[in-house]
């Protein structure tokens, strides 16, 4: 049968991707701009023998996720910035207990109640410290409806593979924009859970899933093991690059603003400007080696301009990745100030012209 093509919002693509990824349980709490996700799950999951439950808060929602994950279900939640903050204690436990789940953050403006416009203000929270302690999420940042569909489905596989939460980091623009989506059936792997999930102590010794380690040696060992796991996740690194070696300026961006940047870069390249494009798709692990590689493979001096819908966060990871081998400049747009491709073109041309402009 031919795959069906539908015109859907980014958040709808996420929900459809979750269903394709084999999501069995959804627990969440409404918050704009992602309410289509729980609404779709509320319709679809019961039809498939799955579970949908609207919790009384984000705090309880993430703990329902924790419970369902511990008994082996493919489970997810979705929220937006303030709700994600409320879930962060649960995130830390999920990481510590090595429980797989998928968490969707359709970012809105912050801090505080902020606004409901597009923002990438939660970059640091997602990639550096989703909760307290020394834990990480695997973070995927789609930039189109079909990518949102595919990456969300894949997220369930990766979560099970690494027994770690995987976050889909999106924003209000990607979430609310409609695009055609081809509902391809995807090959999403499953991993056996019998060796760790709590299913009742039948025919085996009883099992404990816990994160309390009062013996300091034990705790250190556990954290080092988690660290090795984060290293192993580097196999999953994904990015998109437009680069030949001759570029003098490279625009770096993820998510919705990456689309605006790509438009600007393609326009400029058509006119003969030496500009390139780099889009991290995994934000953690960060494709730093690929960035460094580009800097080293450049025939001349190259500057990387990092465009973000926040006051400058990913720029820090770009700078760290470059090891000083190339210049990195931050161009930042807080919520409500959305640049047009023309604005980005202007910025890139400025960078091309002057090699000695001030660093941020």
């Amino acid at each position, binding site marked *: 049968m031919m795959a069906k093509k539908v*015109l859907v919002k980014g958040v709808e693509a996420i929900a459809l991707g979750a269903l394709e990824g084999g999501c069995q349980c959804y627990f969440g709490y409404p918050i704009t701009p992602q309410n289509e996700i729980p609404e779709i799950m509320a319709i679809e999951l019961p039809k498939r023998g799955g579970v949908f439950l609207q919790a009384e808060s984000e705090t309880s929602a993430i703990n329902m996720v924790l419970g369902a994950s511990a008994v082996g279900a493919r489970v997810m939640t979705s929220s937006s910035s303030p709700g994600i903050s409320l879930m962060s204690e649960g995130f830390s436990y999920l990481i510590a207990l090595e429980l797989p789940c998928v968490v969707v953050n359709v970012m809105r403006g912050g801090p505080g109640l902020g606004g*409901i416009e597009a923002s990438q203000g939660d970059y640091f929270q997602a990639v550096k410290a989703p909760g307290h302690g020394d834990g990480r999420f695997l973070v995927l940042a789609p930039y189109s409806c079909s990518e949102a569909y595919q990456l969300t489905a894949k997220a369930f596989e990766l979560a099970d593979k690494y027994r770690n939460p995987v976050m889909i980091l999106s924003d209000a*623009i990607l979430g609310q924009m*409609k*695009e055609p989506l081809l509902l391809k059936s995807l090959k999403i792997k499953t991993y056996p859970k019998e060796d760790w999930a709590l299913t009742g102590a039948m025919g085996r010794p009883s099992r404990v899933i816990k994160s309390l380690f009062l013996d300091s040696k034990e705790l250190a060992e556990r954290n080092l093991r988690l660290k090795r796991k984060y290293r192993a996740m580097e196999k999953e690194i994904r990015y998109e690059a437009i680069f030949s070696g001759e570029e003098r300026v490279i625009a770096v961006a993820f998510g919705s603003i990456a689309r605006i940047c790509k438009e600007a870069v393609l326009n400029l390249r058509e006119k003969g400007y030496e500009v390139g494009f780099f889009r991290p798709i995994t934000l953690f692990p960060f494709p730093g080696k690929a960035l460094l590689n580009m800097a080293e493979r450049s025939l001349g001096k190259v500057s990387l301009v990092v465009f973000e819908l926040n006051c400058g966060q990913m720029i820090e990871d770009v700078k760290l990745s470059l090891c000083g081998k190339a210049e990195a400049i931050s161009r930042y747009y807080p919520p409500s100030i*959305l640049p047009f491709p023309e604005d980005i073109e202007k910025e890139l041309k400025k960078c091309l012209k002057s090699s000695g402009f001030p660093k941020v």
Partner: protein
Amino acid sequence: MRLEVILSGFGGQGILFAGNLLALCGMYQRYQVTFLPVYGPEMRGGTCHCTVILSDKEIASPLVLEPGYLILLNLPSFIKFMPRLKKGGLALVNSDLVKKEEITNFEELIKGKRVIFLPMNTLAEEVGAPQALNMCALGAFNGCLEIFSESTFKKALKEMLFPSKAHLFESNLKAYQRGFQEVKKIVKD
């Protein structure tokens, strides 16, 4: 082919419905499309707008600074978006709610641009569907450009209407046809 449109009007005039429908028709006509609703408190009351892009190549940015086309259903939309219309671009304007004489810098705003005035409210009322002025506008727009066929429009409209609104299919179609025919009187291919 690449077509960039901003549709704008009052909340309640069916701007988002029309934009979404246009994108869906584009998709059925095998174009790449994006439909970006304005996102924010503007969604209720005040002006409401959306951006639709149809292209035969991959669409990167869903945001457009200077669109080639505008569909403007009220005065605040005219004031807000006319300055952004590309030189040589076309604006379809609802003359029932946008009066030239009420706009002090009218000549300056339309300089180098094509503007077609149509009484969208009146046309919709004439076919007995006063609320379907958005379909009238969409019909007029397609009348100018002929991007999609009427059968595509019917297929998309059917899909867009909630089951509870299915009975509005005929009146919406009539409004669309009226807009299409009316603009043909002005634009001769």
